[in-house]
Structure formats: C-alpha cells, structure tokens
C-alpha cells in the first residue's frame, strides 16, 4: 500500500521523570520514500521524539505509526521496520564491527548466514570492511558513526532514522555518508534525519519539520520553506572586484576580497540591473552562487518567532 505514510506522529507528549516537558503534543507525517529533515536547536526534543519512535523512550501520551503499525500497541512489529542510528555511540567497544553487525541482525531474527553476507555488504559500502575484525574501540569517530549506519542497515529497514549522524565528523567522511544515505533513499528507503548542518538538510531533504521547545514550529517542503525567505544573498566570483562596488536601489553589494562580491536583494528584485552596473564598471562575473546559510537565517528567525509567540501566549 503506497498510500500509508511511512510515519504518522499523533500528538506525542513526553514529560520525563524529572518534570522536563520534552514534547508538548507533536504531530507530523512523513510520506513513503521521503527524505525528511527534523531540525531544531539543542534540547528541542529531537532525540526524545526519535527515542519514542524506536521504543527507547516511553511516551506520556499520544502514539506513532510506522507504515501504519502502532508503536504503542504493536511494538515488536513496528520495530522490524525501523533502522536507528542514534546520536550517541552505543555499541560494545570491545566487540568487532563484523560481530556487532551480525549480532544486531540476530536480534531481528535474521539467520547467521544471511547476516554475515549483509554485514560484509554494508561494511564494504561504508568503507569499514578492512576494520571489520578490529575491536570497535580502535575505530576513529567517523568510522564509529559509519559502523552505526551499517548496523542500522542489517534488518534492511523501510524507515531509516539518523539522529545527528554527522556531528563531529569531518567534511570528507560526511559527504561519503550522505552519498550512502542518498543511495539508500533512492532505492526506496524512507529517511528521517536530524542534523545541525543546515545546508546539509537543504541539499538532501525534500521535506522538513522544525521543532523548538517540544513544539513543531514549521512543517513543510524544503522548497516552500526556502521560498519564504524573501531576501537572497548571491556570491559573485569576479575578475577584479572594484574598491567602490556599484550603488543600486534595492541591492546591497559588498566587496569581500579581490575576486569576490556579495549581493543581497529581495527575491523579486531583478538581476539584470546588477549585471549592467557591474559591466559598466568593467567587472566580469565568472560565476555566481547562492550563499548557503539562507536556511540558517530562516531557522533562527522561525525559532525566534516561535519563542516570541510562546512568550506572548504565556
């Protein structure tokens, strides 16, 4: 059934034993095949939400359905469908990556022979096969993260959930991780991730929810979200940047260095006048791109608004 969403979160609330209200009635839907980003500042409740989906955290009220299967009422069935890459390292450091993967498969009832084949496949794809028989504690930070991805793939989940998998991982390894996850998504697995690298979410994800203080403040497509941002900043690579950048109505041009200019303008503003002014100064534009922190600006704004809204309501 392609009409059943991969995930339906229905009014989830969580109050921890110490009284912290981590989720205050969260609802959202993730369609099958989606690449979904869950963004939010530290302490927003992302890991709590993921904990409830993976049954590590007991919800106070509400429910979630994974491909229509209720986490509350059919936990075991629901768990079969999920692969989890948690925020914190949580394998036995004295075991070997190969054994960690094969044992994980065993917990899902996958016979040892198939498990061994899969372990080899995924450890290879995540470029860990040459470390497969070393103790896991010998792996670098990035390798440990990749091991957790390989482990999460052992049951070939329909829904892969990654909780800040690239935190503290260097850019090269981050890229290869995203290449792997994008491949998994292209092959049909629904992916949900939380990340602090907002440009990553922008590049990878089709839909997005922003959570703050246990409340969803935005839930939309990445496109529509970015369209909300009315100010755009372009980075221009130029042959030589003039000391006095052109002054144009509605456009702020800044000289960054000898070969770089930045132009900020309303989305609706045309680019022709900018190019004309630069041409008039004898400046040649060799390339141009969007400045990548747009989402970050938006994110800050949304969260600030959300907070102000709450304060007013309180």
């Amino acid at each position: 059934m392609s009409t059943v969403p991969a995930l339906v979160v229905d009014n989830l609330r969580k109050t921890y034993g110490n009284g912290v209200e981590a989720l205050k009635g969260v609802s959202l839907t993730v369609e099958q095949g989606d690449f979904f980003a869950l963004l939010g500042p530290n302490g927003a409740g992302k890991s709590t939400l993921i904990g409830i989906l993976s049954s590590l955290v007991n919800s106070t009220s509400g429910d979630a359905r994974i491909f229509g299967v209720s986490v509350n009422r059919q936990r075991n069935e629901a768990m079969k469908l999920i692969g989890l890459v948690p925020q914190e390292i949580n394998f036995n450091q004295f075991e070997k990556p190969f054994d960690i993967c094969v044992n994980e498969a065993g917990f899902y009832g996958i016979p040892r022979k198939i498990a061994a084949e899969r372990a080899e496949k995924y450890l290879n794809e995540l470029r860990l096969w040459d470390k497969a028989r070393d103790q896991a504690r010998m792996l670098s930070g990035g390798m440990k993260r990749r091991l957790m991805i390989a482990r999460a793939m052992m049951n070939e989940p329909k829904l892969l959930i990654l909780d800040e998998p690239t935190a503290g991982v260097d850019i090269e390894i981050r890229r290869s991780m995203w290449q792997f996850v994008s491949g998994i998504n292209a092959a049909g697995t629904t992916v949900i991730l939380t990340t602090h690298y907002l440009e990553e979410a922008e590049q990878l994800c089709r839909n997005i929810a922003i959570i703050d203080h246990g409340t969803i403040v935005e839930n939309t497509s990445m496109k529509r979200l970015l369209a909300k941002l009315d100010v755009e900043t372009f980075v221009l690579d130029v042959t030589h940047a003039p000391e006095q950048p052109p002054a144009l109505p509605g456009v702020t041009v800044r000289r960054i260095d000898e070969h770089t200019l930045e132009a900020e303008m309303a989305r609706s503003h045309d680019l022709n006048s900018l190019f004309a002014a630069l041409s008039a100064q004898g400046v040649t534009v060799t390339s141009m791109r969007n400045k990548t922190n747009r989402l970050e600006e938006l994110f800050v704004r949304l969260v600030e608004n959300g907070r102000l809204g709450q304060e007013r309501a309180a």
Partner: protein
Amino acid sequence: MSGSPNLVALYTIVRREIARILRIWTQTLIPPAITVTLYFVIFGKLIGSRIGPIAGGFSYMQYIVPGLVMMNVITNSYGNISSSFFGAKFQRSVEEMLVSPMPNWVILLGYVLGAVARGLAVGLLALLIALFFTSLHVVHPLITFLSVLLGATIFSLAGFVNAMYAKKFDDVALVPTFVLTPLTYLGGVFYSISMLGEPWQTISRINPIVYMVNAFRYGVLGVSDVHVGASFVVMLVFVASLAAFALFLLKRGIGLRS
C-alpha cells in the same frame, strides 16, 4: 541456525554471552578454580582432617564438596549476569536489543542461559578439582544436575534484577559482598544446620541457599538437612517469582527505557 526469529535472537544472545565468558576466561574461569582449590586444601585437607566424620559418616572434605561447588555456581552465575548486563547498560549497547523486535522474555532467557552456562562450567571445574582431593560417588545424578540448574537459574535471575536497578558499577559489586556472601556462608556450605541451636536453625530455613546446598548435597551424598522435595518446591517458587519480577521490570523498562 535458522528457524523462528525468536530462536535466532535467543541463540545470538547466548552465543555472545558464551563468547564473552571465553574471551575473558582469566576473569571468569580461573579465579573460581583457584579459590575452590584453596578451600579444599585449607578447609578440606588441613582443618577437615582434624574434624573427623560428619553427618552420615562422610569425611568433612566430602561433606563440603557439594556446598563449595554450589557456592561457586551461585556466585559465578550471579556475577556473570550482573556484570554482563550492567556492562551492556553502561556502554549503552543494551539499546541494540531494546530497539529490536525481540520480546523481553528472549532477552531475559538469553542472559540467564549464558549465566547458567558459566555457573555450570565453574561447578564442573570445582567438581573436577574436588576429585584430586577425595573420592566422590554421585548418588542421585538427576537430582544433582537439577539442583545445580535451579540454583544457577535463581541467582542468574537475581543478578539480572540487580543489574536492572544498578546505576553504577558499585551497585552490582556491593550486593554480592553484603548479601550473597553472608547468605552463602550461613547457608550450610561448611556445616550442617542441624549443628546450630535454636533459633538459628529455624532462621537458617528462610535462607534460600540452604535449600540449594542441601538439594545438591542430597544428590551427591544422599544426605540433607532439609527434605529434598521441599528444597525443590522452594527453588521452583524462587525461579517463578524472580522470573515474573524480572519480566515485569523489563515491561516497565525500569533502568532501561526513560
């Protein structure tokens, strides 16, 4: 191994537990062998030879063998499960099992079987060492085996419950010192409780270890301070209630799920 998913999961846990026991054999198998040898030399050989025959005409050495074997079975089953399960909590690798579809009883049974395996291995080792010091002829092999099995199961379950509540390593280290060791020493390992005056004889009967040691001693030597049927009833009640309690804690996620 194929078959039902739960069976595969169970096999996975047991296999991993046994691999752990063998990997750290210098901590799991050697120390009990050394301790039991010392007990046999000091209590059995040196002191025992001056004591003369005890209940049923056995030498003191022969009399304490079943108690010492059982003591090792108990402490090693308990130690195995509490350190292994708490270790999994401490490293958070327990989450691998908690997010999997496997039901709680598989987790519990897997850890218990692993701990019982350690208990039986150490018990067998102690029995083999005993044969260097004295001759033994097992009177009731089935009762012997069942009493070891039940004793190991009870203390595996108890160790599991301990590990669930434990928040730091001290919490799994202190119970053996302050609860298990006194109960064992007062459980008739080194003496017959009939040697005690009242009220100590009656008080001793609330100590579950008395029943285990005596059921085992009955199996090996054919003598016991308590009725062997009563011993088995007591042990089965302990197994059932501890298992039920552990499953209840797992269902509630005590110490595991927040």
